[in-house]
């Protein structure tokens, strides 16, 4: 079955090409693995990731600021109504009981303030909590409570204000609501109130968020995404001034837009819908503001094992296959069809070497030389992996599987080339069909890459994914190997069996055909 002499001859004839191609492939492989292993890939990834995280945190802060502003503003509006109602009652009562008007007004004002504040505390706040569906002692309820009462900044009986200390701590000197009460009935009051609420809410939010306790709490929640204290500080989210500017700007933005939109209400728009729409606009996060696919893609990048994909899907599945395919096309042709075409096969067959022995020996040489090539790349890749320090799920075992997969793909394709080489007498035809098909598979895989899920969806062209269905290289699935699933096992099986079948059909055909020797 096996002819040593023929094997020796094939080694001599094709050994040089094998050596050159193997050295080239190993060189390419080590370049890819060593250079990309120096961290360039993860830097890119980190930059993208940080942008996303930064944007996400910012937008959630803005959202919070607007929510708090709305809550505060509504509460103060309610306060105003309650104040006016009780003031009117108190003032009328005082006049009726004969108090002179100049004394009745301040007294009524004092009484109304106390009553409105009490109403806010005892009626409005519990109702609001209730309608929002929060439990009385939940964090959310406490936040709402904080917003309302820090905004009100209640004046105590001794004339001091309850939360002045808090504001002063951050260097804020803010107006007191009691000063605004004298003009409460004037048209400008609404504007003044809104500005008052804005100042207080943004100061409250900034103070709150920059407190050590809250910073730690946020870091805790973000640590899953790799956010460190340093990065968080870098973004500026633990700094009072930055936070205040950010929330203040968001509220100003919102107010300006709201005013404009309310003045120019279109058909079918209610004040409510405009408010929620604007809130959405202002607080849109980076992810939400990009098209959905892009957002998904950026999200994906965060979870990608870039190094593994580069080595597995880019090198072993495509770039690293090109040279072996060239070797395989030329060698499979030289082993059978070329010798039949030139006529030199006559010398082999006239030495009692059976045709079966010829195909068996040449098949062993072809598959064996490819196997040896991938043994070399396996050794190279393991050495390279162990000499780079990079974040990846790749390990020696997975590298072994990647190399095995690449070999099996080459084995299956060499089966096709061997078959055409045995089938045709003309090496031109054998090369055109077998080699053409192999190159087609490779090109289809390259095009298919642009539509495959390993590519971030932002630059993915789904139509190109169809190319993946017409290439047998698709049966080599580095992602499955990297993810540790077992899908690749049956795909390996198909490749191996397909390759063997092609070799056998080729051998049978070669035994039965006429040879022009």
């Amino acid at each position, binding site marked *: 079955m096996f002819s040593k002499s023929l094997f*020796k001859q094939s080694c*001599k004839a*094709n050994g040089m090409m094998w050596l050159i191609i193997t050295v080239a492939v190993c060189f390419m492989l080590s370049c890819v693995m060593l250079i990309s292993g120096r961290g360039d890939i993860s830097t890119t990834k980190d930059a993208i990731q940080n942008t996303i995280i930064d944007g996400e945190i910012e937008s959630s802060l803005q959202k919070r600021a607007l929510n708090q502003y709305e809550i505060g503003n509504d509460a103060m509006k309610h306060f105003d109504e309650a104040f006016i109602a009780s003031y009117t009652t108190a003032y009328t009562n005082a006049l009726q009981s004969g108090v002179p008007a100049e004394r009745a007004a301040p007294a009524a004002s004092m009484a109304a303030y106390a009553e409105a504040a009490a109403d806010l505390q005892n009626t409005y706040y519990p109702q609001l909590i209730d309608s929002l569906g929060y439990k009385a002692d939940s964090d959310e309820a406490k936040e709402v409570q904080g917003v309302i009462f820090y905004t009100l900044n209640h004046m105590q009986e001794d004339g001091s204000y309850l939360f002045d200390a808090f504001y002063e701590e951050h260097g804020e000197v803010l107006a007191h609501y009691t000063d605004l009460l004298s003009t409460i009935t004037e048209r400008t009051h609404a504007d003044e109130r809104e500005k008052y609420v804005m100042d207080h809410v943004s100061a409250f939010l900034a103070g709150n968020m920059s407190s050590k306790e809250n910073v730690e709490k946020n870091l805790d929640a973000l640590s899953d995404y790799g956010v460190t204290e340093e990065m968080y500080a870098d973004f500026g989210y633990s700094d009072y001034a930055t936070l205040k500017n950010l929330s203040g700007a968001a509220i100003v933005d919102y107010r300006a837009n709201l005013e404009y939109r309310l003045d120019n209400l279109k058909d079918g728009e209610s004040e409510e819908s405009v408010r929620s729409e604007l809130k959405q606009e202002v607080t849109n996060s980076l992810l939400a503001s990009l098209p959905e696919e892009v957002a998904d893609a950026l999200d994906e990048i965060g979870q990608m094992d870039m190094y593994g994909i580069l080595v597995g899907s880019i090198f072993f599945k495509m770039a690293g296959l090109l040279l072996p395919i060239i070797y395989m096309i030329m060698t499979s042709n030289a082993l059978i069809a070329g010798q039949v075409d030139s006529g030199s096969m006559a*010398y082999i067959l006239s030495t009692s070497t059976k045709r079966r022995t010829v195909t068996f020996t040449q098949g062993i040489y072809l598959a064996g030389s490819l196997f040896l090539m991938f043994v070399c790349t396996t050794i190279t890749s393991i050495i390279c992996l162990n000499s780079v320090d990079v974040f990846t799920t790749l390990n020696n075992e997975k590298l072994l599987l990647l190399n095995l997969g690449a070999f099996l793909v080459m084995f299956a394709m060499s089966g096709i080339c061997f078959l055409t080489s045995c089938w045709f007498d003309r090496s031109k035809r054998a090369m055109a069909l077998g080699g053409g098909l192999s190159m087609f598979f490779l090109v289809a895989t390259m095009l298919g890459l642009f539509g495959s899920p390993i590519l971030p969806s932002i630059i993915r062209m789904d139509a190109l994914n169809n190319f993946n269905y017409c290439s047998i290289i698709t049966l080599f699935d580095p992602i499955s190997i990297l993810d540790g699933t077992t899908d690749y096992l049956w795909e390996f099986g198909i490749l191996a069996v397909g390759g063997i079948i092609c070799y056998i059909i080729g051998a049978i055909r070669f035994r039965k055909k006429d040879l022009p*020797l």
Partner: protein
Amino acid sequence: MNTVIEAKKLTKDYGDGRGVFDIDLRIGQGEMVGFAGTNGSGKTTTIRQIMGFVKPTSGSVCVNGLEAWKHSSEYVRKIGYVPGEIAFPDLKTGTAFLRSQADFLGVKDLSYAQELIERLQLDPNASLKRMSKGMKQKTAIVAALMGNPDILLLDEPTTGLDPLMRCAFLDIIREQHALGKTIFMSSHMFEELETTCDRVALIVNGKIADIVSVEDIRNPKYREYKIEFNQKKDYEAFKSLHYQIVRDQPKYQQVTVSLFSEELDGLFRDLSSMDVRFIAEVRYNLEKYFRNRLGSSQEKEIEENVQ
């Protein structure tokens, strides 16, 4: 005499009338048979079938009683084959090729190969790619002969050889023949077949037109002589004698007569009294023979077609 190569109704039809048809041929042990025919007449196809490279459409060819298509691998080792179109494996030099071939054949002793190399004045260290056609041919001949095969199958082995080398080669073939090797050699040159072979088969359009023994050509029953006279009267007188005149050229006073060997004595007696300018034997050869045969068979074919 044992039959070594035997073709029975061997047919390979490539369509359009190309191929070989109903070849019947027996080559005995130690016999040397030539295979003559024009280009494309089917010589190579027949030889390929003997080597077991091509499957016959019908009929069979056996070597040592083994059917070629199925069992060729069992006997090809005993055949020294020189293909019609020489192409070597992808090796560097002639030496490398001969070594590899020796390896295949299991030949350990390369002294005979060395002797052949010297006799053919071959430089085996030349690169196979740069070899001229003649060099390649010589290398192929050495490769075919070095295994000391019992049978030689030579497909136009002398093409590309210069006249001197052809002589050297034909000497080697004759030696092999003398050693009792069975040889089947195709050629389109009748002369070299005539000087080496025992029998020659002529193949025309895929069919064996004739097989002739070279002995018969060399020693024909009757021979032709050309005689020219100085005197017109001698010429006239000679013509009046009862010789079979094949050709008459009055202008030169020349006649060509055909006669059996026994009549030769009588001819000389008749001529002794005449003034003869010269007398020469017109050599009869294979080419002439086949030309005659072909002419008549083609005429026959035409007649058949007409009928």
